[in-house]
């Protein structure tokens, strides 16, 4: 579908099929690429042996998933968007430069209301499936309480209040995103917003991050390796993921964790 639209001239302007994340500085390209790689079998580690990454991070499926993402980038990404994340994607979509964009659900209420691209002109779909299943990357912000806060009790009470079903329902109605089952599993939920059915399906297929304290170092290494391959054409997908495994082993070894 992306290839169909790419290169067409509409109103004298060249358009492109799709926009995907390519941001290098923080987390962008990793958030994008894992959407493809999960569906081809990428895992952070051996489920039976923690910190055993060889053969899981760089499995043949993971390599294929990375190649699929690169193919989509090469064929159909608008020229110049080599370091682009959320706002560039929104701009590309709202200006009519791309037919489809990858982005977070948080932006969809605003897109739906946009007079140029919203309303009846816009549709929403979930991450397409791959041979190993259909998954999507987790997004959003966590909420936590600082351990030395003077208002710990009040903060915890706030979280309890916010997590109540009626408050979460109100939050959804106001344009926020609730993942509470009491809200999303209501029969009326799919009809509550045009993007609600896609959101509901996405909630069911989310893959959590690797809840590892060294996640920042791991993320930065992955940003480098996948950007080098996808955007800068450095080496092969296999080499990129092999080097990523080496990077991650080094990170863990520096913290005296046994990794392989």
């Amino acid at each position, binding site marked *: 579908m992306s290839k169909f639209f790419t290169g067409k001239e509409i109103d004298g302007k060249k358009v492109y099929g799709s926009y995907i994340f390519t941001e290098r500085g923080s987390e962008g390209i990793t958030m994008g690429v894992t959407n493809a790689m999960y569906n081809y079998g990428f895992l952070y580690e051996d489920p039976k042996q923690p910190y055993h990454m060889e053969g899981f991070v760089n499995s043949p499926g993971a390599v294929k998933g990375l190649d699929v993402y690169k193919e989509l980038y090469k064929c159909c990404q608008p020229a110049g968007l*080599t370091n682009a994340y959320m706002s560039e994607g929104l701009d590309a979509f709202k200006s009519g430069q791309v037919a489809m964009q990858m982005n977070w659900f948080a932006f969809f209420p605003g897109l739906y209301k946009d007079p140029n691209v919203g309303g009846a002109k816009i549709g929403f779909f979930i991450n397409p499936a791959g041979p190993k299943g259909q998954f999507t990357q987790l997004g959003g912000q966590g909420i936590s309480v600082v351990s030395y806060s003077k208002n710990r009790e009040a903060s915890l009470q706030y979280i309890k209040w916010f997590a109540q079903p009626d408050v979460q329902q109100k939050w959804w109605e106001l344009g926020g995103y609730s993942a509470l089952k009491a809200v999303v599993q209501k029969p009326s939920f799919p009809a509550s917003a045009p993007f609600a059915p896609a959101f509901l399906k996405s909630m069911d297929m989310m893959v959590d991050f690797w809840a590892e304290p060294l996640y920042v170092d791991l993320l930065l290494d992955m940003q480098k390796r996948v950007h080098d391959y996808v955007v800068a054409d450095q080496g092969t997908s296999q080499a990129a993921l092999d080097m990523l495994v080496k990077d991650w082993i080094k990170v863990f070894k520096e913290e005296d964790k046994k990794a392989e």
Partner: protein
Amino acid sequence: MLMKAGNDPSAFASHLTAITPPRLSRRVRGLSDRSLAWLFIAPVMILLLAINIFPLIWAVRLSFTNFKSNLPNAPLRFVGLANYADILSDEDVWRAMQVTAHFVVWTIVLQVLLGFGLALLINQKFRGHGFWTTVILLPMMLSPAVVGNFWTFLLQPQIGLFNDIVAFFTGIDPHSFQMLGDVKLAPWSIVLVDTWMWTPYVMLICLAGLRSIPEDIYEAAEVDRASRWRQFWTITLPMVLPFLMLAVLFRGIENFKMFDMVNLLTAGGPGSITELASITLKREAFEKWRTGYSSAFAIILFVTVFGAANIYVKALNRVKQR
């Protein structure tokens, strides 16, 4: 009283003595010239020690440890030369150094050629040369962050002017190439932008050199029927050479530690194609928080620049003495 005293310095001094508290006046009278000089430069020395020398010594100390700034309470371990060994055997570090070398060499070559050429032209003192000198100097008056930002837009393949200008002169499709996103063109993009910004600086230094050459040397050469080329080769170039070398030294040191403009322009991308050593250092120090490792990297860079600059200054002094 003060106005009258102003006409007579000794009366003024007497007046000051009269109004100065006795204890202070005894103390100041007791200070020698040398002590007074130290007193005046002491604040600057303290500032230099605090923000230059002390951090340098501290960085050297940290470079032998496994310290991470985001884990200040973690046990500090002395790792000897392990950080240095890691850096010197890291392929990514060597790649960053190669990118930096490419950037430094090509910016210097282009800036010297263009800067010297512009200086020769401006030195002709044609009508309006003052105005054109000011116009040429404008790029270097901008902040590197601003330059990085607006060149990002200029080099955009879809909305930027650069591609259209190239297409106008060469006839190629403006959408067929992208300066910042192309692996082959991105390194030249940062060279181009830095050259645009700092050629005026080299021009200024060369202009100072050209204007320091006495006119009578050229008159004597004309009397001896030396051609323009001969005058340039035997008079202009040798006499401007120390200034040129100074410009090369300054630009070389600046570009070796270049960060802001390139970070805004490409963020080291695409991939790591334009990742200068300073960008790698920033990532290690302030993203991965590997303070010990990045301190060692900073020391290595400092020693490299310091050593190279020392050798170069010796060569410069030899040229000046000729």
